[in-house]
């Protein structure tokens, strides 16, 4: 049986070296302080994000840049697979399917907009991810499918076929695709939990911690979205949340949704200090306070990643830490570029990060 040193030694060394290629805070700060979108790309020169400026200069199109960022994140996951031990590779592959699932959701949203809402999607369909994904062949076939049945057929050989077959006609009927999206997310998390169970004790513990934060972020995100639908019944919220042992219990979240007591949630994640922090979220509406909580969770995710980087290098901790930091950085870059495009002030932009 291979030792953890032989299994993780190479990839950990490789990723620790690659970690230095991630953007330094100073560069992100320069991008935040830039005065226009074009200038926001300048701090990325000489970094792994250098190609973004070229893409933007050639097309003037920020959405193309965003598509590149998504592709970058997806390929970073896939590139690790050959270097990881079997069970860890299966787990990381499952994480990559989360990105794939997001891409599919984008395609389904486009289909839904075109067919159920009768909206033109010509200016958005061009940005669909065209690279190779894991579970199926062509997102274009989903978007262009003339009927819901055809869209399901395009996915029949993928893990998503059954869910889309059942969910898409219902989405058309109800006028909302949210439940279908949640079903896909639920599938992703179920598969992720199965992959987690196959990890060894030490790796499983590390991965569990990362997943717990991810689940929390997902649930908080969903609550923010549900708040957008006015009059969404509090007792139905639970159906849109993922329950996972060590994260904030879904029941507590559902209760908080009704009572608007965000401080309690913060205490569940961060202990007593979290409650105090959450009190400082101020008198903003519950959506804004949930968003603040989400930002805290993202900070927690980064802290967890840094902790793992300083910890045992012969475990799944380093790959997961690298992916977490990369993913957070790409999210920040996306936020900064969009803020520059929409002319959002530096101060407000900083509040989003």
């Amino acid at each position, binding site marked *: 049986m291979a030792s953890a040193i032989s299994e993780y030694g190479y990839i950990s060394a490789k990723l620790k070296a690659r970690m230095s290629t991630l953007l330094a805070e100073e560069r992100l700060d320069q991008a935040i302080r830039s005065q226009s*979108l074009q200038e926001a790309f300048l701090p990325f*020169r000489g970094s792994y994000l250098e190609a973004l400026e070229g893409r933007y200069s*050639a097309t*003037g199109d920020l959405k193309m840049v965003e598509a590149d960022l998504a592709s970058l994140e997806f390929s970073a996951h896939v590139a690790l697979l050959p270097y990881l031990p079997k069970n860890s590779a299966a787990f990381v592959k499952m994480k990559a399917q989360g990105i794939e699932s997001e891409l599919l959701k984008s395609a389904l949203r486009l289909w839904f907009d*075109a067919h159920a809402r*009768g909206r*033109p999607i*010509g*200016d958005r369909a061009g940005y669909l991810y065209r690279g190779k994904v894991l579970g199926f062949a062509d997102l274009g076939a989903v978007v262009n499918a003339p009927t819901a049945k055809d869209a399901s057929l395009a996915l029949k050989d993928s893990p998503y076929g059954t869910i889309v077959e059942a969910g898409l006609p219902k989405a058309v009927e109800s006028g909302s695709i949210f439940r279908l999206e949640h079903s896909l997310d639920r599938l992703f998390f179920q598969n992720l939990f199965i992959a987690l169970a196959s990890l060894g004790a030490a790796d499983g513990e590390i991965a569990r911690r990362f997943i717990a934060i991810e689940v929390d972020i997902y649930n908080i995100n969903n609550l923010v979205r549900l708040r957008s639908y006015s009059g969404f019944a509090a007792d139905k919220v639970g159906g849109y949340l993922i329950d996972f042992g060590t994260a904030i219990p879904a029941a507590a979240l559902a209760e908080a949704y009704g009572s608007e007591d965000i401080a309690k949630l913060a205490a569940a994640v961060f202990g007593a200090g979290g409650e105090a922090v959450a009190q400082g979220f101020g008198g903003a509406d519950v959506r804004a306070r949930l968003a603040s909580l989400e930002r805290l969770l993202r900070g927690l995710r980064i802290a967890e990643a840094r902790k793992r980087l300083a910890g045992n290098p012969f475990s799944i901790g380093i790959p997961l830490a690298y992916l977490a930091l990369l993913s957070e950085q790409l999210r920040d870059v996306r936020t900064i570029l969009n803020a520059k495009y929409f002319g959002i002030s530096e101060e407000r932009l900083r509040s989003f990060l």
Partner: protein
Amino acid sequence: MMFTVPMEFLSAAILTKDAAAVSDELLRIGSLEAVRFKEASGVPASSSLREGMTASDEADRIRDARRRVEGFLALADPPIKPSDPSLFDSTRAPDMAVIEKTLNSVASDIQALREGQKDLQEQLLRMEELGRQAESHLRKGVQARLPQGSSSFLAYLTGSMAESEVPRMERELGQLPAVTIQSPSSMEGRRSLALVCLKRDESRVRGIASRYGWKEGREGESGTAAEKETLKEIEARKEILRLRLGDKAKEFALLFDSRGKELADLWGSLRADELSLRMRSTFSRTDSVSMISGWIPASDRQRVEDGIRKASGGRCYIQWLGVGQAAPDGSDPPVSMKNPGFLAPFQTLVTNFGIPRYGTVDPTPFVAVAYLAMFGLMFGDAGHGLVLVAIGAAWLRKARRGGKGTTLAQLILYCGFSAVLSGLLFGAFFGRPLLPALWFSYHGVVMGDVPPGAAVRSIYDILGITIRFGMAVLAAGFLINWVNLAKARDWRALLFDKTGIPGGWIYGAGAWAAFYFVGHAYKELPPAALMVPLLGIPTVLLGLKEPMDFLEKRRRGKEGPFKAGMAAGFAMEWLVGILEVYSGYLANTLSFMRVAGLGIAHVSLMAAFSQIAAMASPDGGISPAGVAILVLGNVLVIALEGLSAGIQSLRLNYYEFFSKYFNGTGRAYRPISFRSIDT
């Protein structure tokens, strides 16, 4: 070049109204490493003078604007070279509101261009999607006829409309992935058309068309012809869009053609303001008087003095603390090393290790000679050297063209020359003894093929050469250290320290004894009557170091009276020192055997590849496989041995040579000038 550059300390009082002009002049000369008055005097400026001008907000604003301009200049292809800051007058405060307005207008022009690009890009994406679907179905259907079955994602509508309405409808359809194919002629003012779109947009296309009087009809002759033209039409539309995107890129270039000079000058002006503010922020001042303090190379003294007098119109008072005098706060002057440009890579090797103490020998030229000699002895092959010369020259050329650092490229080039020279001495060319050896054939010695009467006959002889070479290097280290100590008038260290005369004496005596022993067939040591004073006197001198130090400290009041226990401490220090000298110097010397080791490895590896190549060529000649093995072998040896020899040369310099004399406690001289580059 022999020693670090001598420095003098400038203190000048000028009128505050002349501060900007004097600051500009000092930046132009570029010699002053400014020291804040309060730092120099050790007294807070506020006690006698008001706080110096910081203007940090203004400085930040100027710096941010300058960085913005830098970004714009870098966007041009090729990047625009900024103007020289020394050409701009920074005595007047820049109008930042106007400058920021200018920069915002450039940003806005760029954004407008990008928006135009974005529209075109979106149209292109729509056409690409339509084209993708059309091509996909054509591949399935083989025939150049678009499918109309239910499995297709394409919709194909035929009909006619008033000719005058066609352009308006096409404009509106431009927002969708759709193309119109027109029949070549019209009938009674109506033109037959085919509309090709994605099925998902069919109802929308039909809706748009019907607003312009579209009458759907059966496919006629013109429709069939149009069908065949659809792909061509999509391609043509894509090509037009690509050309228009190319036009946008040209517009972008034109933007910089028209505003490039303005931006380059703006950069120069902002940089001048930024540096001037930075310089003035080091002045201490009252409303009427400003004080300038700082270090200047002694050779620039007159130039700086003239510059200050000229810029201040003679309204100044200047005082110099000459070379050798301590600064007002007692700190050492900064260290500058003045070497010819070609020694720059070796100066970098020195500063990477540390900055030598002010006033000591500049080790750069010694490092250059030692490093190249070591490399040549380890990598003695003229052919391999030529390869390094070619790599170094190409890299150097590329780096110079790209305005990038040339240090490593220069170092590789020099190492290449060194290898060529030593290759000629050893007669080696691509691992073979093809050249007449000017000194001895390294290959012959390693492979046991030595001509009769050769001076160097065995591996032991080569080891002996490298040990002698190491002793010469270490002796040079001792000599440099003695010069440093004498220059610093540190006589105690010179006379009693292990790196002073006693250390060198012991090393010399030990070396002589070792050669005597070897010269007598390892059977006889030098006479004891000679060895006892030879080694005993310096060893005793070493023992005096600690007591002498104690007495000196006591004289300065830093130590109390002598206590009995101190004698044991002195003895222990002495014993440790002796051990360090005898074992340490021996280890330092034997360390140079690695030079022989790597040289032997170089020859052996090449010989091994030659033998493998010969085995791969059974006919006696050289087979293609043999050639491949030789090429691969040479590449491997050049890469691995080259790297190894470079690293080992550096190691021997840093740990054997430097340990004898180098004191890296200096502080680098960093003057501020119009040529300063912010990192």
